[in-house]
């Protein structure tokens, strides 16, 4: 079969196209974005009429995917780890409804927080929902697991989680394709009450889920993705989860790992295989990317048994992603590093692009708020979060998407005036609207600055669900017309913009200021595409 060079994310996307996917829904988020991006750009997916779309947030993604599963077709929903917090209500309850057409929750974790607020481990969510979890060790497994995951989902009528981490998501390798298969036909659930979670039905469904646990375990026990490899040296047994397997292999370039090794890539953790390793070896080393999930299972509360090494006893750092060096240290073979980074090498943090509209917005905000003093700006997540760094030092919070407006409201309730929220256009429709409604209903005194650069810039310029709708949404929620102010964030308009913002900061009530100017990156891209189109026309 054809071999392609694919990112882990792209392998999942291609795997889904080949496995008879009918729809993929996502809100962008590093490191998961490239999955959906790939399907949206795929000619093959278009020809197959696969629905591929960015949604307003992760919860709406998950519910749309569940609806497609209800209708009997295969659906996938993709998100970064914190996206699952937003989709959690749909996710957990979908394990009770179960699936009809196959449904995969693809969740990309970001250990070491390369582009995230935390490094939460989504396997705990999978365990919480009591559903099977797949965790590929490489790009080929990522591809293969989509096929397998859909089969598993349809076999037991259960959503399946596919968990990856940043390194796999954003690393390329050769992937061999399978023969593509057909999509499902529309087919309603055999039991039309399956998806009605009234207590009387939910209790039955839940018993079914509990009953299925042993089947999920049997699947993991016999899965090709989990395997036990014996070794002569029984002083230690090694358990690897997902990607960690590669870092172990890397430390034995000529093969021949002396210790017994259990590779886990499918959960629930295969009890019998774990037991075999535990019984045969004097101690166990657990290598897992993320929180110590398997390690905690092994230790139990009291750890009365054999020595378990991993993140909890300090053999491996408690936080951050793994790498071959950390694994080498855990194996007792220090890596020889002779060279140091010269002292003159300075940090180079990410920064706002030259000409970015957020820069002009922050210079207006900083000046307008100076008379009140520091510490009053509740911000949110996006490119504009870089306003936290020098030279802007313009914002004071960044917690979770949408928190700017509601935190400003809470602080205003406490008496902090003015209380300012700064939120991007995409973040506003993701999770800001409901908070603004709270503020309007309570006539809170806050000023909400919605930075409208007409795109979801941070994650690469996906369309914004808020496009050309922001004023109407605010009006609809009940913000007074005269306190919805649109400004153009340009240096030459600094003075007039300053006047507008000062007026609204002084207003006791909900006011919304919308600095509107397109992101430089998407603007440039649009211009380039236009130019290309022109050239093509001339050629023709």
């Amino acid at each position, binding site marked *: 079969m054809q071999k392609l*060079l694919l990112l882990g994310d792209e392998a999942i996307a291609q795997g889904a196209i080949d496995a008879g996917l009918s729809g993929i829904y996502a809100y962008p988020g590093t490191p998961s974005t490239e999955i959906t991006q790939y399907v949206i750009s795929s000619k093959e997916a278009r020809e197959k009429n696969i629905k591929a779309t960015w949604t307003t947030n992760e919860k709406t993604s998950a519910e749309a995917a569940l609806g497609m599963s209800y209708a009997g077709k295969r659906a996938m929903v993709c998100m970064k780890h914190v996206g699952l917090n937003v989709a959690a209500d749909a996710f957990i309850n979908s394990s009770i409804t179960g699936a009809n057409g196959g449904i995969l929750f693809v969740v990309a974790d970001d250990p070491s927080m390369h582009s995230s607020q935390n490094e939460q481990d989504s396997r705990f969510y999978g365990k919480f929902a009591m559903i099977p979890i797949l965790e590929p060790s490489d790009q080929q497994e990522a591809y293969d697991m989509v096929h397998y995951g859909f089969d598993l989902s349809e076999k037991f009528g259960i959503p399946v989680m596919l968990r990856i981490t940043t390194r796999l998501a954003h690393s390329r390798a050769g992937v061999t394709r399978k023969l593509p298969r057909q999509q499902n036909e529309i087919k309603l659930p055999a039991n039309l009450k399956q998806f009605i979670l009234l207590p009387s039905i939910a209790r039955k469904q839940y018993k079914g889920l509990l009953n299925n646990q042993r089947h999920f375990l049997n699947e993991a026990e016999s899965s090709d993705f989990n395997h036990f490899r014996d070794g002569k040296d029984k002083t230690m047994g090694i358990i690897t989860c997902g990607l960690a397997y*590669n870092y172990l292999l890397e430390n034995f370039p000529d093969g021949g790992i002396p210790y017994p090794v259990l590779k886990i890539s499918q959960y629930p953790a295969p009890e019998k295989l774990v037991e075999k390793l535990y019984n045969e070896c004097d101690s166990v080393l657990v290598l897992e990317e993320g929180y110590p999930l398997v390690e905690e299972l092994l230790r139990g509360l009291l750890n009365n048994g054999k020595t378990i090494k991993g993140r909890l006893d300090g053999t491996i750092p408690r936080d951050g992603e793994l790498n071959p060096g950390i694994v080498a240290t855990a194996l007792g073979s220090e*890596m020889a590093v002779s060279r140091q980074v010269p002292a003159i*090498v300075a940090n*180079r943090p990410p920064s706002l692009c030259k000409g970015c509209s957020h820069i002009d917005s922050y210079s207006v905000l900083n000046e307008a708020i100076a008379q009140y003093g520091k510490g009053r700006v509740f911000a949110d997540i996006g490119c504009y979060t870089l306003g936290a760094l020098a030279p802007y030092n313009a914002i004071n919070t960044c917690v979770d998407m949408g928190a700017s407006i509601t935190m400003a409201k809470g602080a205003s309730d406490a008496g902090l005036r003015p209380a300012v929220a700064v939120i991007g256009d995409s973040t506003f429709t993701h999770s800001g609207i409901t908070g603004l409604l709270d503020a309007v209903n309570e006539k809170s005194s806050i000023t909400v600055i919605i930075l409208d650069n007409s795109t979801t810039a941070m994650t690469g310029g996906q369309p914004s669900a808020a496009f050309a709708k922001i004023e109407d949404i605010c009006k609809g929620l009940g913000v007074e017309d005269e306190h919805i102010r649109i400004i153009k964030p340009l240096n030459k308009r600094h003075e007039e913009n300053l006047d507008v913002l000062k007026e609204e900061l002084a207003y006791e009530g909900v006011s919304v200021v919308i600095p509107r100017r397109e992101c430089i990156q998407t603007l440039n891209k649009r211009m380039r595409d236009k130019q290309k189109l022109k050239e093509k026309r001339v050629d023709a």
Partner: protein
Amino acid sequence: MKKDIILAGVGGQGILSIAAVIGYAAVQSGLYLKQAEVHGMSQRGGDVQSNLRLSDKPIASDLIPLGKADIILSVEPMESLRYLPWLNEKGWLITSTQPFNNIPDYPSMDDLITEIEKLPYHIALDADLMAREAGSLKVANIVMLGAASPFLDLDYDQLKKAIAFLFGKKGDEIVELNLKALEAGRNVGLKNAN
């Protein structure tokens, strides 16, 4: 055959196109490849790197272990030094001397050159200057690829074919421009290799 390469630069400088050319040439040569990239936050003008691993045997880790890289190929002088702990004893540091100065505490050029010259195997060239001579500033990254080409253990023709393939969509002129840049860089690389 096994080559571990760290590509370094600043977000937006085009190190992923270098990776794409090497990657395509490697796959066409029947080699295994793994390439870890950086996407997301740091692409906004921050430091970026890519771990590129080629081998005639299957590759385990997506990340290159410390002290194991054969080449650091950088399109920016300060960034070339950030990854020194990864470079092996016999490894080459190949960098452009054109600074990308977007931070207040950027070191002096003299200090940077001093540090680069401390390395037993290094090549430092002004890729921007050579790119302009070739016809466009945009091909500075391909000049750097050319300079590294004698050390990659890849057939030079495969690299040229990869460029023709990857830039083919943009027209013959762009392909020619990139090939010219590749050749110019390669000549510098060859001179230093001997």
